[in-house]
């Protein structure tokens, strides 16, 4: 449960930092009147949708941290055989990075109000994401072709499970991306287009980060880290 505990530690740190700025030491029974009416004290100064996305990403992060925890615990058992990594995963990583770059430029374009560049960047981002999904499908095929399908090996089971859950999140992100693009094309209220683009981009950056962690996990680079943690505990 190392991964999830570390993740929670980070979440608690953020929550603690935020709470420490909320006047938890105040004595509300003495502070009647205008206290707290000053702008900025009563709520977080962000649109609700951004805070909502932040909370949602924390939940998604917890989900993957738990899968990773389960991976580490299952890995210790004797029937574990490390999986060879299909090369195409590197290419897929590249497409996901391209997607993030494109969306990053999309945000810049949206903030400047450059609708044409925005549309191009959104399109490029979407195409890269689609390529990533296709690439993941090919990777699944290759693993199956190597004879590691389903019940034969816990490492390959985890490979399918974790990349599958990640791919589902990517697919969900594509839907959000499609809605944002729709807004960009129908010349919706520019503020909404910008917010929408920013939200999308934050989500996709997060998905890239998660993917990099998954890649490191599946390639075995995190094993030593897990060993160190285990030694610390015992």
């Amino acid at each position: 449960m190392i991964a999830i505990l570390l993740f929670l530690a980070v979440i608690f740190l953020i929550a603690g930092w935020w709470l420490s700025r909320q006047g938890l030491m105040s004595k509300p029974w003495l502070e009647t009147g205008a206290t707290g009416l000053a702008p900025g004290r009563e709520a977080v100064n962000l649109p609700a949708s951004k805070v909502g996305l932040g909370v949602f990403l924390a939940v998604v992060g917890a989900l993957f941290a738990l899968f990773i925890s389960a991976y580490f615990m299952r890995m210790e058992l004797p029937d574990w055989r490390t999986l060879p990594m299909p090369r195409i995963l590197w290419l897929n990583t590249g497409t996901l990075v391209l997607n993030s770059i494109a969306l990053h430029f999309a945000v810049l374009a949206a903030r400047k109000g450059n609708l044409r560049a925005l549309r191009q960047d959104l399109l490029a981002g979407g195409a890269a994401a689609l390529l990533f999904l296709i690439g993941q499908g090919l990777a699944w095929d290759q693993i199956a072709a190597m004879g590691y399908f389903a019940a034969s090996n816990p490492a390959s089971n985890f490979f399918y499970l974790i990349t599958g859950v990640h791919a589902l999140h990517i697919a969900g992100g594509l839907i959000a991306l499609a809605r944002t693009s729709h807004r960009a094309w129908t010349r919706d209220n520019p503020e909404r287009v910008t917010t929408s683009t920013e939200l999308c981009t934050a989500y996709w950056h997060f998905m890239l980060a998660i993917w990099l962690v998954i890649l490191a996990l599946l390639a075995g680079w995190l094993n030593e880290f897990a060993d160190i943690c285990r030694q610390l505990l015992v």
Partner: protein
Amino acid sequence: MADATPHAVDDIPAAEVPDVELYHPKSWWTKYVFSQDAKVIAIQYSGTAIAIGLVALVLSWLIRLQLGFPGTFDFITPEAYYQFITMHGMIMVVYLLTALFLGGFGNYLIPLMVGARDMVFPYVNMLSFWIYLLAVLVLVASFFVPGGPTGAGWTLYPPQAITSGTPGGQQAGIILMLVSLALFIIGFTMGGLNYVVTVLQGRTRGMTLMRMPLTVWGIFTATVMALLAFPALFVAAVMMLFDRLLGTSFFMPALVEFGEQLEYGGGSPILFQHLFWFFGHPEVYIVALPAFGIVSDLISTHARKNIFGYRMMVWAIVGIGALSFIVWAHHMYVSGMDPYFGFFFATTTLIIAVPTAIKVYNWVLTLWRGDIHLTLPMLFAIGFIVTFVNGGLTGLFLGNVVVDVPLSDTMFVVAHFHMVMGVAPIMVIFGAIYHWYPKMTGRMLNEWMGQFHFWVTFIGAYAIFFPMHYVGLVGVPRRYHELGDASFVTDSLHNLNAFITVAALIVGFAQVVFMFNIFWSMRNGKESGGNPWRATTLEWQTPATPPEHGNFGKELPIVYRWSYDFSVPGAPEDYLAQNDPWPNAPAGGKA
């Protein structure tokens, strides 16, 4: 002594109420069925949760009939018995308590109490309910598939959960159970996002975090915990579905069943236990924290006294929420874990008793020298404190490894958790319904039926669960269909079991009276007016009762004080509503 007289109110600018875009219902369907109004969603959530809860109540009668009068009822076969206990536990913990506290009370109270027009994402909020309903329907469907629902125990421990010896293990039962849980979690996450972000973003002017009623603090913290803990159950459910459907071996060790080697091998049932309890323990506090919060408000309002130690109450809620994530393995002392782990988890478990005890002291000190009105909500609140202390004390027994090992999996454990997370939160739910029913309907619940309901439920719950501790101490294991002729099973034990069963049936009947009261009072109850309890919090200050869509009419209230200004010296009444600018004139020059 602290100076309780309020300071002069500075000039407060006129409320700048942002024009909130509300989706206004256009037809009967969108007003009452596919509604995006948090209050309607709250009632839908509550209605569904209580309906499925009644199923679980009936199941508990069947369980008790078997235990009290073994061999009398032919239809309660061992398989059926396992299905009953499994479904009873799962429904009560997840589909009733979690859904009612967060989906029901959370939806109703958060927007009203923080002074918002609605949840921040009303559409997602509506989806949350419909997915929850789907989860409940999938769960109910499992009663009607061949083989019936799963009988794996509410903890669904593998490997037995998916082997053929367990009811529903190789049939559809376990699959529907896992799918239903996954749906519940998806639905809950949608609702949970709303509750959290509404508290963070939707608060009205002047409503600082430290002015929020403890009810909101409790529901808020519990929701944050649930958002982080439920994914563990989701992961466990998905991996078990893989094991069951695709033949993977995440949790399944090599097994021989009826002389046949199964295809599984190498998996770890302990891994499942870690995942399950990483959800399961926070779940206890996900149910308890809203109860803590609500009971604080009930006690303060009905004792006409400010809550003792508000700050400490808030810190305790947050502290309990954080600590509850590092105690999960105290459910696994007998799983063969490293003794040092057991020591660690016993320590954290006992540490969590400190903030919890602080809360209990503060409730009692709030009552001390209060003007206690023994209204129905107050009776249930006091019932909660007593019951929670009882259940908490046996928790100290079970939290210690050496005491837990002999008591593990006995009826003592069953008695403990029913006291602490069954009866105690249910007491709060009842108290809360008696308290807020007037706001939801404009009418009071009938007092005499309520008195009957309280006394029968309260005394009856003790008649059920006090003796059960003894049954467990003698050594009766939980989950056994019949005790047989073991040497420790005496005649008196059988009599005691029969007594418990009779008490359970009587308590069950009292709930029928309660349900009748709810429907009867909707038309025939005494009219309550907008603020029958003379309470301070914002939901009682709405222009209309029941509140309309948008909650507060044209302008959102401005909050001038915390939510516990009772008996302020010099004030015109014995309470000051949160939006009461006393001693200054209201903003805008209205008298």
